[in-house]
Structure formats: structure tokens, C-alpha cells
């Protein structure tokens, strides 16, 4: 998704209406209840909240020129990895085995066997089409953020094909985009 994300793909940045701001804030709070208490720090009401529209139906939520959240086609909001590293507990997580790390970091989707093998783990129950943090065997921090293609139960049962769509991973275009201006 963000493999080649650059500033050029931002087609417009707008400061959004306060009603839209409320909506974004609400949907983030709904999606990540643990994040709610700190939401005021992350998205201070005083700072103008900017939504950057990009190609491929992508929206970035930007505060002080720092992208914090993104969503795709009005899907659920997801934190950027830098933010997730600061609040690692807020997302449901899955873990891949060590062999998969290399591929995930070059943008591959996460295949079921990588999650069900010895090094992998499905730590939380997650439904299909939900954002998850992808962790790795033996590593502390998340290495990618993805969208589940099937529920964790199905992943364990079917154990074939794509389990989680890789959306944002370490060292991709969005990761390298520290500031938007």
C-alpha cells in the first residue's frame, strides 16, 4: 500500500470542519478504546486537524505536519507505525514467525502458515477485515500494520493463503514520511 508513498501522492490537504474532526476522533476512539484517554494529547483540540487526501482513496490524519492516522476508502482508521510504537498496546496483534519478517518488510502480505507456525501466534481473537498490528517472533515492536482477510479462527483452520493484508510496514513510504508540508 505504502511501498512507494511520496509527497507527490498527496493531492490535497484540508483543514477539516470541527464536525468532521469529531467524527474522526470518535471513530478512532471506538476502534481503539485504549487510546481514548490520550486522544486529547494526540489530537489536541486547539491544533488544526488536517486531512491529507492521497491517491488510491487514502486519507491521512495530520497534526502539526505529522501524519498520525490513515484510512482507506472510509475504512477504519489505523495509526502509523511510529505512533503504534509509542502506544503498542492499543491494537490487536498477531505474530509472525521469524522467517516471514524479511518478506513482510518488503511489503508481502501475511500468509496464514506464517501465523500458525511455531514462531507465529494469534494472540487476540480478531474478526475479518479488522486492522491488526503485526509483530514478529522475538521482536518487541510491531513491524507492520495490516487488515485481516479472515478471522483468526479461520486463519488457524484454513491455514492457507493470505491471512492479513499488509498495509503499512517498517521502512515503507509512509514510514519515511516524517513530515508532511
Amino acid at each position, binding site marked *: 500500500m505504502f511501498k512507494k508513498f511520496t509527497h507527490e501522492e498527496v493531492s490535497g490537504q484540508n483543514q477539516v470542519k470541527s464536525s468532521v474532526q469529531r467524527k474522526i476522533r470518535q471513530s478512532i476512539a471506538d476502534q481503539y478504546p*485504549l487510546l481514548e*484517554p*490520550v486522544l486529547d494529547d494526540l489530537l489536541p483540540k486547539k491544533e488544526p486537524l488536517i486531512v491529507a487526501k492521497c491517491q488510491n482513496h487514502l486519507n491521512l490524519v495530520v497534526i502539526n505536519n505529522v501524519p498520525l492516522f490513515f484510512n482507506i476508502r472510509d475504512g477504519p482508521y489505523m495509526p502509523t507505525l511510529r505512533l503504534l510504537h*509509542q502506544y503498542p498496546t492499543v491494537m490487536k496483534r498477531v505474530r509472525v514467525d521469524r522467517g516471514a519478517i524479511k518478506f513482510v518488510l518488503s511489503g508481502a502480505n501475511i500468509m496464514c502458515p506464517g501465523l500458525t507456525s511455531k514462531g507465529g501466534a494469534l494472540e487476540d481473537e480478531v474478526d475479518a477485515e479488522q486492522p491488526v498490528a503485526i509483530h514478529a517472533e522475538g521482536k518487541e515492536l510491531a513491524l507492520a500494520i495490516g487488515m485481516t482477510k479472515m478471522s483468526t479462527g479461520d486463519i488457524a483452520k484454513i491455514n492457507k493463503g493470505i491471512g492479513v493484508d499488509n498495509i503499512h510496514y517498517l521502512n515503507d513510504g509512509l514510514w519515511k514520511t516524517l513530515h508532511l508540508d
Partner: protein
Amino acid sequence: MAHDKLQPQTVLYCGVCGLPPEFCEFGPDFEKCKPWLIKNAPGAYPELTKKAADEAEAKLGDLRLGGEDGADGEASTSKPEDEIVKKLPGGKVKRKEKQEILVEKATRNKRKAITTVKGMELFGVKLGDASKKFGKKFASGSSVVKGPTEKEQIDVQGDFLYDICEFITETWKEIPESAIYVMEDGKRKVPYADA
């Protein structure tokens, strides 16, 4: 957890590749990160720190001075990288006389683009004809424009950088694929055959 406000964790990122230290080993260049890691994040790779020390030891035969020697090595390894980067631009001049087609994309107005085709006349193609064909094929405006230095070129509205190359080789069989070069936003020139 709810009443305890979640505290942001400070995360250390590698000064070389920007990844968290534990992922440096999967990063673009682990070797370059190593000196930084040993210095700044010894905790992330206990094995590495030890190994590095061992390696240094093995190489130099010196005992515990390994750490300092590592730092020196870092300075010298970072230099060659800069030189490589500098060499890339340039090399534009000599191609002018050759029979070749240069396809260029210029962005205008953010999401609008213009594809420019230069050098069609060198193959004996009538520019008016060609422009009409382009217009028809891509369903967009296409015109013959006087380019810089009195040369005529064809402007096609829209981004057809790669489609147009294909179209050219299909329609005018006498134009070899190898004569077509692609340039994107003035960045660099790439032979179409490779692109």
C-alpha cells in the same frame, strides 16, 4: 488500565536506517547499522555486540581496544556511499544526434499530466499523422508543438508514459524498441526496453 493514562513510550530508532534497532538486521544495510547499534543500542543485539567485539578482536589481534577501532571503521565506510550518489546524474549530452525517441511526462496542475514525444521526425514519421493517431488511441488532446530549439514535438494530454511506447512500436514497425527512451518528471532517462 483505563484510569491509568497510557504513557507514550519513547522508541529508539536507528540513526543509520531509521528502523527500530531490533529490525536493523532486516533493514536495507545491516552492516552499516552495526557500528551505530553497538554504540547506541547495545541492548538490542547482545549477540551482535559480542560478535562485533569478537570480530574486531580476531581481525586486529588487539584485545579490548575493539570498541574504538570499530568507530574508526564506521567513518571510513560511510564515505564511498556518497561518491556513488554523485555519479548518477549527467550523461545526457551525447545522445542528441542519435536516432531516438524521447518520451517525457510532465505534471501540470498536480494530477494532470502531459506526455511529450520528441524525435519522431527522425524516423520519417509525419508528426501531424502521428499526433492524430495518438489522439485517437488515447482519446485525448494531442498536438504538434514547437518545442525548445525550434524542434517539433508531440504533446498528448494525460499520462501515457508507458502505453505510448508500446503504441509507437506497434504502429510504426520501423522504430525499434531500443530507440525509445523514457523520462519521468525530468528525473532520469531510461531505455524503454528496460522499463
